Each structure stands twice: as C-alpha cells, then as structure tokens.
C-alpha cells in the first residue's frame, strides 16, 4: 500500500519548500525589543567575558537554524517516505509475477484469501528491493499493463490495481528481456509452470470446497418443450462432504436435493424443470466450511412457458392439428379463416394458407400465405423446387433434418427490404424465411399439403422450435466469467437485478465484462434479445486443492530476498525520521523551558 508516496520531483519540491519556509521564518524573527537602562556599564562588564564566546553564539544561531531545518526536513521527508539506495542494498531489478487465476480467491484459515496473501508477499518482495532498482509486476490473467520495469512506486500501484480473474485461461506471462530476479507468487493450481530461474512463493493452503462444475438448461431432442437442468457437482475438499443442491426459478417451484460426496467425487444430476415457470433458473450448492464461493452458484434460463396459447387459423390441416395437440403445455385454439378476429388473443398465431389483412398482434407462423399488404408479394409459383440448402444452426431448424424433404409446389416470394433470414432455400427461392420485426415471423412458402414436410420426423421438432423461437424461447448462452462477446450489434446489457452493465457496443457485436457468475440479458436496438448465463462451472477451477505446491513453500532459485523476512530500513525510514523530529522537538522544548539556549 502506498500512502502519501511521492515522486522524486515532488520530494525535491517539498524539501526545498520546507527549507525556504524555515529560513524565511528565521528571517521573520522580530527585532529585539529596545529597553533603556540607567547604564550599560555593568552589562558591558558582564558581557566582556561573553564576548570571548561570540563565535559560540554564532555557532548556536546556526545550530538553532540547523536544528529547525532538521526537524522540518525530517517531517517533510517522513511524509514523502524517502528511500535511499545507500542503506545497505545492492541495486537489483525485480520482476514479480502474481497468479490472479480463479482459485486465488479461495479463502484461507485466517479469513483472508490466497490472493490477499499473494498481494502481501508481492508487496513485501517489492519493498525489500533496493531503492535504485527497477520493478515490474505481471499477472497470469493479463490485467497488468505491459511495459518496461519502472520504479517501486509504479509497481506497487500496478499491484494495487490487480484483482482475481475468475474466467479466462491463465498462463505465465512472457517476461521482458533483461537481468531481473523473478518471483512467482501462486497457489500452483491453475498455473503451475514457471521458469526455472524464478523463485516461487506459494500461497497455497488446503481448503474445503464444493462447487458446480457444469450446469445447463436444455430441452430433450425428442421433446423440445420439455426442459431439464443438467447439474454436475464436485466435492473438491479432502474430506467427505454433505452437499445441499437447490434449484430455484424466477417465481415458481424449486428443487432441493442432498448429496453426500466423497473427497474428490463428482456427481451429475438431471432435474426435470416441468414444474418451473419461464425465467431464470439458479442452482446453488452449499456445504459447511466452503472456502471458494464463486463456484457455488450457476445460472440458466428456462425459455418455455408453462402454458402457451396458440391460435391456429386454417381451412383444415390434419397435420398441424394433430402435432400441435400433442405438444405439452400448449393451449390450442383452432378456427377457420372466416372466424378469425383481430381481437383474438394468443401467444403465437399460425396461419395456414391464410393471412389477415393486417399483421397480427403477436408472432406468427405462416404456411403459404396469400398476398396481403404486410407481407412481400408472390412473384411466381415454382413447381417441384429443389431444397438446395438450409441453416441447421438457426433455432427453428435445431435437430431438424431436411434431406428427405420434397416439395411439389412452392411460391417464389420477394425478399423483404428489412432484415430477414432465409433458413431453408436461398434468396432467389426462399422456402422458409424468418424475420424479426416488431414481431417475429416465420414464413413457409409452401403448403404442407404440397410437400411431405408434415410426414418428416423433424416436423414436430420444427414446430416446437418455431414456437419456442417465436415467443423468444431460447436457452441462455453459456459463458465463463470475464470478457464476453455476443453477436448482437450495439446492444445494452443488464444483470438479473436489472442494473445496467458497462458494455462496448460494436458494429457487429457487443462486448461486456462479467466478473461474477450471473444471468445477463442483452437487448439489441432492433429488439432482439439474448440471455447469457455466466457460470464458473469448471472442474479445474473448483479443484482448489489440486496444487503441486506445499503451504507457504518458497522455491528459490537465486534470490536472496525471502518472503516473510523483516522489512529493511528503507521501508520504514519515515518512522525513524518522524522519531528524530519528535526527539529534536522535545529536546528543544526542554532546553527552551530550562533556558539553555544561551
């Protein structure tokens, strides 16, 4: 920690100012008072002997000035915390690499963390260096700014600005060229390789830890609307642990389970989320004496609603009605086109060979809609078109195979001016077109009756995917803590509490920093939305005892600076300076009151 540390220039100004102030105050001393006496005869006689000591008087004046200057300079120097390279130290250059990987956040028995100990050790190593040496602080997560070695003060400032990085891939940094003693302060868990010439200072201390090493909210491929939470829990402690696992949703439901895991054991659970409502899902593991809380939490997002209202407007479609009737948690309202009323309220509208004159008030799936004003017009009718290509990465086509799709007749529709994506076909002949306007639209340019699509095994999955996508039902992106990129341009990011997170909106993506696990919502300017579940969920990070270092071990290659050694005189010089000033002030006070000044 640097307190009132000053640069050499500031010290010079401070000391110069102090000298000037003291000398100025001496000059400001008022002239002696004139007193008339009857005769100076006796005084002259008395002072004759003293006149022999005039040089002593002058010396005393200078001595008094020097004393005042010494006091002033001592106090000023004490404030500036000076260091002198001549105080018994050789000039040495020191490079300290400090491990700030996730496991350094593990709490130790004394209540501090490994990181706290590492910072203390690093600071101690820096302070033990000579004042004339060059110092450099580097870290395993790339937080420290790259640069050449500087003075101790700059290195201490860099050290003070470092934090534990939960994410990323920590590694031993590249060292600059030049002669320097290298110190590596680490717990040896995530970064266990250091150059042989480095002195490794261990801050490792065995600790209890249980954590979630994997967490995912996922639908079964065979049943797209049924979601499960996959949880993997590890006991990284060196003793058996009884662990409580809790899953909770946004508003409804919750699951609690108790596991007993042996030391080092990992266990997985799949938990049905049917009883959960749409929204965030939070998994928490608790165990006694847990020293690494960052992996005790994991977040996901359950996209499906408990009950989705679907309005099917069709002249009659056995395929659609049958498939939709089997979709769980779906309330289906089937009506003829003549019965359609714009006031009909539904979460999703499915128009089969029909389109209302005005756009519906919700997302819609359309099969071969006729030309209406709010849709691009039909250019032509294409007989037996090929299915040249499709995008399996799009959510609506997830787990859907279209190799066997045959179409007798399809409409060649014009591409809309606004952003739209062809997921089946191409821009000349879009067969399935998705667009995200004020409402999401999936437009299929052929009728089910004109193809074998409804007979394909992937059709129910397509319907479930489409329903999910239309009502914005996507699982969250899984990311590790740290720098996160999402493929939404110029988006705003909020956390679970709704607080804004600082983000860097770029033209093609948005970048933000998520230091802690949590569920983040990213919303683009055009309304598109993504959820990002940031979880530590890493067996490597949970294994906080997986270290090759012993507790408080120092593996020294060449260094003579030892962690834990008493600080040198240069470190605490300001204390001695202030003590000197105090002693001089007391001495002056005593001599003044005893009138020993002359």
């Amino acid at each position, binding site marked *: 920690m640097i307190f009132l540390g000053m640069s050499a220039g500031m010290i010079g100004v401070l000391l110069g100012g102090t000298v000037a102030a003291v000398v100025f105050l001496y000059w400001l001393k008022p002239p*002696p*008072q*004139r007193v008339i*006496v*009857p*005769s*100076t005869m*006796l005084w*002259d006689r008395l002072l004759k002997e003293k006149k022999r000591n005039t040089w002593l008087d002058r010396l005393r004046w200078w001595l008094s000035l020097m004393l005042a200057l010494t006091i002033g300079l001592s106090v000023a120097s004490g404030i500036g915390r000076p260091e002198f390279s001549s105080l018994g130290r050789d000039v040495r250059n020191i490079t300290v690499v400090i491990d700030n990987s996730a496991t350094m956040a593990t709490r130790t028995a004394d209540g501090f963390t490994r990181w706290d100990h590492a910072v203390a050790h690093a600071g101690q190593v820096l302070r033990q260096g000579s004042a004339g040496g060059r110092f450099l602080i580097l870290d395993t997560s790339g937080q420290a700014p790259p640069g050449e070695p500087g003075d101790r003060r700059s290195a201490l400032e860099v050290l003070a600005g470092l934090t534990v990085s939960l994410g990323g891939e920590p590694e031993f940094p590249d060292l600059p060229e030049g002669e320097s003693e290298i110190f590596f302060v680490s717990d040896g868990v995530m970064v266990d390789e250091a150059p042989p010439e480095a002195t490794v200072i261990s801050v490792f201390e065995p600790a209890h830890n249980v954590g979630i090493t994997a967490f995912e909210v996922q639908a079964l491929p065979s049943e797209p609307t049924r979601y499960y939470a996959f949880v993997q829990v590890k006991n990284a402690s060196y003793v058996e642990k009884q662990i409580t696992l809790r899953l909770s949703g946004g508003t409804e439901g919750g699951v609690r389970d108790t596991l007993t895991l042996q030391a080092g054991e990992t266990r997985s659970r799949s938990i049905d989320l049917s009883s959960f409502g749409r929204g965030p899902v939070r998994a928490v593991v608790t165990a006694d004496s847990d020293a690494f809380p960052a992996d005790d939490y994991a977040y996901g997002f359950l996209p499906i609603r408990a009950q989705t209202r679907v309005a099917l407007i069709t002249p009659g479609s056995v395929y659609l009605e049958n498939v939709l009737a089997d979709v769980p948690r779906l309330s289906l309202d089937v009506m003829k086109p003549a019965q359609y009323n714009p006031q009909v309220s539904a979460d999703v509208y499915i128009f089969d060979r029909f389109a209302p004159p005005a756009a519906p008030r919700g997302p819609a799936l359309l099969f071969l809609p006729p030309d209406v004003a709010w849709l691009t017009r039909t250019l032509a009718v294409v007989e037996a078109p090929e299915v040249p290509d499709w995008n399996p990465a799009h959510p609506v086509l997830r787990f859907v195979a279209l190799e066997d799709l045959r179409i007798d007749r399809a409409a060649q529709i014009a591409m809309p001016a606004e952003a739209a994506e062809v997921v089946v076909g191409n821009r000349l002949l879009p067969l399935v077109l998705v667009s995200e306007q004020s409402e999401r639209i999936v437009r299929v340019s052929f009728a089910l009756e004109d193809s074998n699509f409804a007979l394909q095994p992937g059709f129910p999955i397509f319907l479930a995917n489409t329903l999910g996508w239309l009502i914005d039902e996507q699982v969250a992106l899984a990311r590790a803590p740290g720098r996160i990129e999402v493929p939404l341009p110029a988006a705003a990011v909020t956390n679970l509490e709704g607080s804004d997170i600082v983000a860097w909106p770029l033209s093609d993506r948005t970048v933000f920093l998520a230091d802690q696990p949590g569920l983040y919502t990213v919303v683009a300017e055009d309304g598109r939305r993504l959820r990002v579940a940031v979880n530590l969920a890493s067996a490597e990070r949970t294994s906080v005892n997986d270290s090759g270092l012993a507790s408080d071990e120092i593996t020294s290659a060449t260094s003579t600076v030892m962690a834990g050694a008493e600080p040198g005189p240069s470190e605490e010089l300001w204390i001695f300076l202030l003590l000197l000033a105090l002693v001089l002030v007391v001495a002056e006070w005593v001599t003044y009151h005893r009138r020993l000044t*002359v």
Partner: protein
Amino acid sequence: MSEKGTLFDDEFLKRLEYLNLVANHMIPGHMHGEHRAKKTTSSGIEFADYQQYVSGEDTKNVDWRTYLRLDKLIVRLFEEETDLPIYIFFDASASMGYGVPAKFDYARKVAAALCYVGLLNQDRVNLVGFADGIAQELSARRGKHQVWHAFRFLESVEAGGVTAMEKAFKGFFSSRRRRGLVVVVSDFMDEAGFAKGFDMLRYFRQDLFAVHIHSPEEVRPDLPDEVLLEDAELGTSQRVRVTPALLDAYAEQFEEHCEEVGSYCRKNGWGYVRSTTDIPFEELILQVFRQGRFLR
C-alpha cells in the same frame, strides 16, 4: 519625574518635621551647638590633651615644664570649635531618571531632607547638582529660613547628561572650598569609575557620606529573551540574549558594584547607606542619622 512644585508637598514637610524630631531625640542638645565638630589642634583656648612631639612640628606648643620634669618632648593640644560646611551633592545625570519613582526624585527628596535637618542644625549647607560637571549649585546657606530657597532650587534642577564625579568634584573643590562633610546622593554609575571621584574627595581632604540609590528594577530587571539595552546616558546600545543565568550574573555584578562602593567608603572611614526607591526616603535618612556622621 514629578512636576515642579509637587515634589515637596505638605506630606513631605510633615515627614521632615518627624525626621527633625527623631534627630533631636538621637543627639540631645545638638540644636545648641553651632559647630559641627571639635578638633584638637595646637592652637585654641580649651586644653584637650597631650601628644608626643614629632620632629618638624612647631615647637611653640611644646610643654617645656613637662620636658624638664620628664625629659620628654610633649606637645599640648587644644580643642578648637569648627564650623564645617555640609556639601550635599545630588546626582543629576540622565541615569537618575530611571525607575518608578525616578531615582532623581528620590535623590532630591533625600537631599532636601538632609538639607532641612542641616539648616535647622545651623550648619552651612551647600546644594550641588552634578552630572559631568556642576549642573547647578546653591551656595552655602545657614538657618531655617533658607529651607524654602533650598526646596525651590531642588525643584528647579533637571536630570540629564552623563555622570563624571571626578570632573564634578574637581571643578567644585578647586575653588578653595573649606573642608567639610560631603554628602553624595547618587547611583554611582560612573563610566570612569566611582573611585576616581572619591579619590578626588580624598585629595581635597573632604569627609564623605555616600548615599547609594537605585531602583528595584535595576537590581532584577524584567527583560525579554532578546533585548537591545540602551544606555540612558551615553545612548549606546548592546544586544543581549537574556537568560536566567545571565540575570543572576547581572544581579551578582550589581551587588558587587554596590559592595565596592560601600567597601571603599568603609575603608576610608566614610559613611555609606544604600537604598532602593521603593523604600520610604525617611527610612534612608534615619539610616544616615544612625551612622552618626551627619548629626554631631
């Protein structure tokens, strides 16, 4: 210094009356003698004593009868009545203006009191104010009726100049003055040294009574740590860093100075009294009386 006309007020005069009564009580009948002293000489009327003849002495007083009987040369001595004058010298130098009350005022009161008693004792009293010479002089007076004249003279004198007793005494007694009692009221702060002045009195064979006056502030001055001391007479200044040790040394020096004056007087058989201005002047006068030199 007090203004003219207020120095010798009624209260002062009452005190003088008191002193006169005390003087009468101490030397009964002294008011009847118009002489200050009787002296044995070879001439006179009343036989006083015999004395061994010393070679060179006038042989007219040799008692030849005794010589015939005893074969020794014996001289007869006779008592001669004298009318010795009193010279009251008061220091009117600038240094006497120091203190509260000023030493000069105190000195004038002392001079006035002695003058008063002397005049009532039918002595011939001279009042002389001196500094580096004779500042002002009131020629010899005798008789009570001269008191007011003497008081007016004392009130008219102002302090100033440097002290030079040798010059003052030499100047005064060089003009064929009679031998008498010289009372010097002064602080004896003479740069040339008081001894030179006293030597001059010895030279003129005068009898001296020294009245040494100083103010309490002189003995233990209250000075700041750093001070520029200015001489009241010479105007010279001296920078001094004052400490208790220095003040102690000064007090010791002052005491030595007073002791030197007193020793000199005692060595020569002269009277010497010393007082500070915070002591009522009548007490000082009584000290003078007790020494028995002024009243005979």
